[in-house]
């Protein structure tokens, strides 16, 4: 069992306009284990995305106090890619488009670098796994031949985030508003992918405004975030 522990986390960002440092997270505490499903809810601007970006290591967010630990190891000195290889995954709210790199080439590279000492996955096994996951997500094979996220619709981008998660198989995945902009059918497909991943070796943290997502992926714990702090934690009934 792996543990992700956030303790008294304070985070600032530099405002794009006045360049002044602004404190967004004001002492967040959160502990989760693999095998668990967590959800963080709360209105816009309370720091939910800041928390997920900070855990992942986005260089725009600065920890001023507190810590994030993965199995007791302090993440703050680790770069984004090191955190990813240690088992963290962030399904981004706005996945970037990269022309000229195919989705397939990218996913294969990502799968191989996160396998560390196990060595690269043989191509046949990789393609079989890819096909299986594409099937679960109702995605066509053609999606992997296209350039990374380029020209993808909002829903296709979200599915592609889940596809990457399913291929990389992280210990912990943070899903940052994976439900935003999805119609009910797409939401069900995305949820199917996430539920397929659930196992004692996988933990998921969902960030959302809406209760709707939680009808399809049932959380063990729900946290309510307000003004840079988690103000309440409870079971799934808290979301209702």
């Amino acid at each position, binding site marked *: 069992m792996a543990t992700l522990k956030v303790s008294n986390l304070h985070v600032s960002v530099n405002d794009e306009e006045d360049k002044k440092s602004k404190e967004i997270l004001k002492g967040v505490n959160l502990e989760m284990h693999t095998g668990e499903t967590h959800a963080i809810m709360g209105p816009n601007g309370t720091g939910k995305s800041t928390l997920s970006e900070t855990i*992942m*290591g*986005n*260089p725009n967010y600065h920890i001023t106090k507190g810590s994030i630990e993965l199995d007791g190891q302090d993440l703050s000195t680790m*770069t*984004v*890619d090191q955190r*990813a*290889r240690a088992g963290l*995954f*962030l399904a*981004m709210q706005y*996945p*970037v488009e*990269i*022309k*000229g*790199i195919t989705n397939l080439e*990218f996913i294969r*590279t*990502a799968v191989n*670098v*996160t396998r560390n000492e196990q060595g690269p996955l043989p191509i046949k096994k990789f393609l079989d796994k890819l096909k299986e996951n594409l099937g679960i997500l109702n995605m066509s094979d053609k999606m992997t031949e296209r*350039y*990374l996220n380029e020209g993808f619709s909002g829903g296709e981008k979200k599915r592609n985030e889940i596809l*990457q998660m399913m291929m*990389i198989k992280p210990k912990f995945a943070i899903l940052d508003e994976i439900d935003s902009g999805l119609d009910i059918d797409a939401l069900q497909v995305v949820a199917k992918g996430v539920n397929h991943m659930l196992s004692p070796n996988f933990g998921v943290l969902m960030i959302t405004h809406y209760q709707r997502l939680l009808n399809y992926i049932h959380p063990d714990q729900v946290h309510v975030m307000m003004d840079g702090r988690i103000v309440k934690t409870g079971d799934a009934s808290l979301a209702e």
Partner: protein
Amino acid sequence: MNGIKHAVLDPKFVSAAKFDQEPDWLSEMRNQAFEKSQDLPLPVFAKVNYSSWPLLEFSTKKQADLEIPKSVKDQLADYTFVNLGNRNIKNELANFLSQGVILCSMADAIKNYGDLVQKYLYQFAIDPNEDRLTAINLALMNNGTFLYVPDNVQLKDPIKLLTIQDSRQEEMFIDHTLIVAGKNSRFNVFQRTETIGDIANPAHLTAEIIADQDSHVQYNSLDCLGPKTYAYFNRKGHLKEDARIDWAMGIFNNGSTIADFDSDLYGVGSHTEMQTVAISTGRQTQGLDTQVTNYGRHTEGNILQIGVLLDSSTLIFNGIGKIIHGAHGSKAQQENRILMLSPKAHGDANPILLIDENDVIAGHAASVGQINKKQLYYLMSRGLSKEVAQRLVVRGFLGVVLSNVPIPAVREQMVAMIERKLQNDPESK
């Protein structure tokens, strides 16, 4: 070393350049061009100062025939036709002979197909009177390749040319490729250039493509000249009615380069796509001009130049779209993009539109920028190290042109070349 600006050429170079049993008409053309060259100005490459480059530091030393090195022998199987310096060392013309195709060295072409060569050489595409370097290239041409594809011949397999500058000794290297595409012909040519040896010789490489009515030529090149080679390139297409030339060129030289790539759309409905990718590294300067001139009605020319800069290098793209009065319904679009991977590099992308006709569609886009940090973050968040992520972003950036290279083996060569250039980058480590 003498810069080109003050170089005075000795006429002995003209006699040294002559082919065996050269006919009078060619010698006469050379002499005239040489004469004229003294008065013609050097070509202008906007924002590139090459006046100190030793581009005309030729040698007339008599060449000893050195043996073919293993590095060259190993590559022979991949090419249809190979010139090592001024020697032809491989020719698989036999594969295309039944269709009337001619493929031979310029020396042999002059000897065996003199009339045909005379009809096209420096007649339609490159004008020897244009500037000092075009004149000198005609006057001193001492290597080359001639490819003639007759009317209605469509070749499925690409013709692959390897042109090697032999710098194991002092050598004058002024190479001219002449490609003639007959009416309604269709074929694919790949030309790779490289240098062996490490003597500092300048290189001049020119190519003319004359595309007759309804022909379709795909010309791909991969230029990988050596670090001590100062190079001048001039590749020009002349297009007749409804002809089309698609250029996809990788400029991966290791030394300083000026290059002029042009298409003249004379025929009604002719069309060209001119795409270039370039990488500059070290202290190298590369200045690339790509120009399309629309003379005919309903002609279309699109330019795409993409480049990456590392270290303290310089890369300048000038894109020139020129529409002549009377070329109604013509299109001229261009895009020039530069990615800087080093704060010490110097890059510039200059679109120039010269339009003398109202009924046209023309446009341009240009950018010079750093690597996209959001893209880098996204890739790294999937476990890719910064180095790998950066290489992938750069490959993606260049990939827009690479994906248009029709021969998979050539595409792979280009990707390998890009990877090698990026891996040598001290900044990304």
